[in-house]
């Protein structure tokens, strides 16, 4: 691990100033991504600024939704009674990821900013355009069984690893930030993560030194009928091969509105908007869900080892919707 200075500050804007003033500085929250990647020299900050003690650790339920501090732990959010009651898709998504120890450490903002688990990204001896722009991508011709089929480019096919983010994508969460000059802004979840395109090193819509302070989960009554289904190689403690976050608004057996997010198969938390439009007004049957799944996977690009993910994702979508439809609320 490279040497670095460990810094604590008093307020969120101070943290933003401390990081924006130094090219090599980074924020440190739970450490489950940053410390891990520092140990393998993938991330080499010269300064880390601890942002866990800046008053960003509360969950506030309001009439308009829920405001969640950036430093709230994944466990805290998943276990919150109002989240479990109103947004089960979010609790389920978080609880399906990692382990209790890691969820106790990892923060909400840290989960949003977590880096890909692509083994070539994590290996400094491999070529990776995300880690070292212009060096090439060893995954495209390499062992790419876990890699993405949606949102890929010729420069990067790394999967976004988060479960929580897939649920937040369907809930239209807003991400609030503060910059070094003290100005705040909010970024819609769908505009936050970037597909790799020609610049896979640009992962999110943040400036250097811009700090996430909190996120807002808007009120969505339909989210009471929501579900997160994750399919993986092991029963627990494993990243998704495919996952689906669904919200289903039913009137009898007709779909008034539907939302669909996909994980484990895309380069960023994926929202399948065209499939959602297709579902609107149709009968909530398995056949309808299968047709929507076909639409959701249109345009997917498989490589040598990840063809199976396309069919797996379709079946995951159908089962997730069927489970939400059949839930006894």
């Amino acid at each position, binding site marked *: 691990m490279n040497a670095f200075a460990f810094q604590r500050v008093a307020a969120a804007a101070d943290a933003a100033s401390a990081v924006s003033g130094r090219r090599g500085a980074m924020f440190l929250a739970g450490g489950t991504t940053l410390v891990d990647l520092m140990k393998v020299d993938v991330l080499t900050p010269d300064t880390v600024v601890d942002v866990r003690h800046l008053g960003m650790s509360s969950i506030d339920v309001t009439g308009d939704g829920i405001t969640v501090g950036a430093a709230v732990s994944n*466990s805290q959010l998943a276990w919150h009674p109002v989240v479990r009651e109103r947004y089960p898709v979010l609790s389920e998504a978080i609880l399906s990821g990692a382990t209790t120890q890691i969820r106790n450490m990892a923060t909400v903002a840290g989960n949003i900013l977590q880096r890909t688990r692509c083994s070539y990204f994590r290996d400094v001896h491999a070529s990776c355009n995300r880690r070292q722009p212009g060096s090439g991508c060893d995954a495209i011709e390499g062992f790419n069984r876990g890699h993405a089929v949606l949102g890929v480019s010729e420069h990067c096919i790394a999967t976004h690893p988060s479960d929580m983010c897939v649920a937040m994508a369907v809930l239209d969460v807003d991400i609030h930030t503060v910059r070094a000059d003290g100005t705040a802004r909010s970024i819609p979840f769908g505009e936050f993560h970037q597909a790799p395109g020609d610049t896979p090193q640009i992962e999110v819509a943040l400036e250097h030194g811009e700090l996430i302070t909190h996120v807002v989960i808007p009120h969505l009554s339909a989210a009471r009928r929501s579900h997160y289904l994750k399919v993986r190689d092991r029963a627990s403690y494993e990243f998704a091969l495919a996952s689906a976050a669904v919200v289903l608004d039913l009137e009898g057996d007709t779909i008034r509105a539907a939302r669909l997010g996909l994980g484990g198969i895309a380069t960023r938390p994926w929202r399948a908007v065209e499939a959602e439009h297709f579902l609107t007004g149709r009968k909530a049957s398995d056949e309808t869900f299968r047709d929507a799944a076909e639409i959701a996977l249109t345009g997917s690009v498989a490589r040598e080892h990840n063809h199976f993910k396309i069919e797996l994702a379709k079946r995951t979508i159908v089962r997730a919707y069927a489970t939400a439809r059949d839930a006894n609320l």
Partner: protein
Amino acid sequence: MRTTLRVNSTTHELSVDSRVTLLDALRDVLGLTGTKKGCDQGACGACTVIIDGQRVLSCLTLVAMCEGQDVVTIEGLATGGELHPMQAAFLHCDGFQCGYCTPGQILSAVCAVQEVHAGVPSHVTRNLRQPVNAATLTDEEIRERMSGNLCRCAAYPNIVSAVRQVLLNEVQS
């Protein structure tokens, strides 16, 4: 850098490199070698400790992050000469073979039981809207809640028995 570390109710003044993890500080600086280094990358759970009442991984925690927090390791679990009920249950149920993962398993299990008593759900909980019930908790629930602690000897069935024994004893008392 200088930092303070509170472990098992004792505060230590440390002068350490900022790169030192909590795990290495416990083992190499304080000589508390009960906390084990398994994978050192957050995958195995052998380094599990309790910070401010929550189970966490000491290998992914920098010691500098712990200032002002309260760390409990396996050395701090027993009261005087009396084993913690979870330690006694692991002995009674033979919940280990080589023993390397055991300190992490026990600390993790102590917190898992507290979480069940608090009623919080896991990935396998059927109904998120209902608090889980300690008396009727399934083996599937215990396995899921303990999935962050790997045992290469595969003592899992006896670990599940130990956790269940403590859960049921606490329910009855």
